């Protein structure tokens, strides 16, 4: 679909073409439930692999998914550094600065990093496989007021537009000898006012223009709206939804039983 700008990429996969956007949204929610239910790195790592596999099944390239994993590396590093200071259970590994670092602490830190990686990657794959239009229609079917739906689509639509505006403004200010690379972070932050200021005003300008153009075309006159995209939950959708529901319930049950956890002290 040519309209709508996001990281969505059209691919002739079953997940792209046939699966209902509501089902895909449910899948994302289920992955989040699973991510929060377990805190063992092996389980979470396995789930990350599963998400990557689903991405491959939807013909999403490794290259498109890699940035999400790469972005999560920091969280893994942070988790491994910080969590051992809090999680003291398990066998001691070594002591540093009066703090005993345990195996559990390290594993839990790794798990927290992987949890972020899992959520971020799942959200990435979800966005790459769900067209914004269909998602909006899906949400409308779920009871979202259609004005809110339009606002959501418009917001996604405006990201690249505002990004282009930002680039133009940055060029215009560079041409006035603004050097954003020079100076300390504080000085640079102050300098960026020269870009954020005009960008803010342009954003309001663009939004106002859109509002007027939509009013001029009688937006909001009717309560309901029709859509070119017709959604139908198929038998496959129902099966997938059932599996997702089952997996979520099992995960919650395992959590209560204490299976797949490093510690019960933390989420």
């Amino acid at each position: 679909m040519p309209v709508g700008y996001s990281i969505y990429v059209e691919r002739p996969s079953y997940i792209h073409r046939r699966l209902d956007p509501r089902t895909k949204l449910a899948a994302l929610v289920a992955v989040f439930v699973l991510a929060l239910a377990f805190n063992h790195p092996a389980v979470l790592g396995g789930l990350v692999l599963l998400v990557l596999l689903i991405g491959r099944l939807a013909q999403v390239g490794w290259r498109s998914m890699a940035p999400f994993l790469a972005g999560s590396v920091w969280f893994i590093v942070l988790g491994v550094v910080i969590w051992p200071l809090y999680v003291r259970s398990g066998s001691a590994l070594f002591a540093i600065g009066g703090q005993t670092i345990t195996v559990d602490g390290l594993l839990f830190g790794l798990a927290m990093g992987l949890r972020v990686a899992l959520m971020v990657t799942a959200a990435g794959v979800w966005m790459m496989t769900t067209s914004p239009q269909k998602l909006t229609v899906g949400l409308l079917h779920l009871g979202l007021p259609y004005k809110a739906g339009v606002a959501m689509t418009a917001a996604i639509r405006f990201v690249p537009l505002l990004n282009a505006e930002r680039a133009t403004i940055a060029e215009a200010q560079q041409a006035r000898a603004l050097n954003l690379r020079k100076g300390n972070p504080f000085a640079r932050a102050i300098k960026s006012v020269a870009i954020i200021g005009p960008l803010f005003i342009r954003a309001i300008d663009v939004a106002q223009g859109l509002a007027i153009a939509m009013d001029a075309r009688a937006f909001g006159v009717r309560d309901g709206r029709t859509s070119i995209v017709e959604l139908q939950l198929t038998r496959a959708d129902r099966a997938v939804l059932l599996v997702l529901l089952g997996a979520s319930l099992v995960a919650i049950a395992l959590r209560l039983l204490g299976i797949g956890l490093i510690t019960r002290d933390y989420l």
Partner: protein
Amino acid sequence: MRATASDHARPQPALSQGERVLDARASIEVSELVFRYTPSGSDVLRGISLRIEAGEFVALIGQNGAGKTTLAKHFNGLLKPTSGSIRVMGRDTRTVPVADMARTVGYVYQNPDHQIFAQRVRAEAAFGPRNLGLSPAEVERRVDAALELVGLQEHADDFAFSLGRGQRQKLAVASVLAMEPRVLVIDEPTTGLDQAGARGILELLSRWNAEGRTIIAITHDMALVAERIPRTIVVSDGLILADGATRVVLSDAPLLRQAFLRPPQVTRVAQQLSEFGIRPDTLTVTELLAQIREQEAIA
């Protein structure tokens, strides 16, 4: 007299070959410039060579998407050549950061709202000079001079965003003029302005040019080019289709047609009247009127 396309295929600098080698006054020298935005994309500029001397006033014309702005953005180094080279005041733009280049080349963007951010008019105009690291006294002198030049001195302490469109355009120009660059590139200086506003800007550019500064204006306004700008470069599909005296270029209808442009309206009228002894390279209403009066006197 009609010039053909081949007459304009190459740039025609005012100086002879011998002088060119010795002359160091050239503001901008472009040689075999090729540019594409992405490595796999198509060439937006397909081999442009031209030379603009110090103190020239040049119009860049061409239809939308011809490559005018892309070419102009090379003049201050915002874009770097994919191949070929461009030298501004003798410096290769590839080796100089844009913020440094801004000292020499001022660039006024099409939409003033892409640059105005300060609360007051004076502060907005002072942004560029301050970035150049000038003393407060010098900044103030330049700001006053620039605001005076564009006729905004009375509004110096007004809110920048409360100005009208034409005045904001003038402020954008002033804020670049205050940096006193030797070369000024101005993209669509008259878009969104009424006839009086457009004339005001062009007049001010002429005055600035009279001080010996180089001006390159990208524009669609043929009438203003005809009236004010001595040299015209026609860009078409990433190439220079014509480069020469405005009178020669703008009166060449077949050539302009290739670039999907038309001569100014008064020139087209004059060309229809050529059988009555009106010169086909008439560029302005004043010129046409003078010729008609002459014919009348003879009759």
